[in-house]
């Protein structure tokens, strides 16, 4: 299983804070996972198409080509604004 988390605007716009997916072809990389989720409907496609969207795998910021394996935690979120 892949555990997927959403934060801030992304969480708010999707109306979901987390979900789980079976590991497989559609979750092979961070980008594949993004495309799998984007194919759900127009709203998901629009939110996940943002060029500012960031991705973290197992709590470390990473690139879109980062491989994902069973048991990983993947988070999608906008640029950070703390401090």
């Amino acid at each position, binding site marked *: 299983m892949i555990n997927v*988390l959403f*934060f*801030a*605007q992304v969480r*708010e716009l999707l109306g979901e804070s987390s979900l789980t997916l079976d590991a497989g072809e559609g979750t092979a990389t961070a980008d594949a996972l993004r495309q799998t989720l984007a194919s759900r409907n127009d709203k998901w496609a629009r939110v996940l198409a943002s060029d*500012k969207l960031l991705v*973290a795998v197992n*709590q*470390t*910021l990473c690139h879109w080509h980062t491989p994902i394996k069973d048991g990983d935690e993947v*988070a999608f*979120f*906008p*640029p*950070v*604004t*703390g*401090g």
Partner: protein
Amino acid sequence: MSQDRILVQTADFSVPEEYQRIAADNQDGAVVTFVGKVRDFNEGNQVSDLTLEHYPGMTEKVLEQIADQARERWPLNHLTIIHRVGTMHLGEQIVFIGVSSAHRKAAFAACEFLIDFLKTKAPFWKLETSDKGQGWVEARDADDQAAKAWEQ
């Protein structure tokens, strides 16, 4: 085991107490602290409060990495980062950074490095309530440039 004090919490913090902790050693000639507060304006709007969201687990990890990077660059003794989450009203404290070192230049530089990196690398997001309603604060290019400047 790192001796850094890194906290993510809803509760407010006491600057005098945190200062005492950082300033405890006589080998340090310099203590630099920074406090970030909720201010009354942003992008021309009158702000009344802020809600800080974060990514539990990743936040602590990133703050520890930033602290380690500061220690690699400057000879620091005490190092504290406290970041609040949840809703904060106008004038309230959001973030505390404090460092001690033998000399002021290292302490000033490390404090500025820590806040520049925290603002651009740590997974915190600000949701602002103003006279125009509620909205997420946009990331600023100036903050990114400030963090990148340390990499040159």
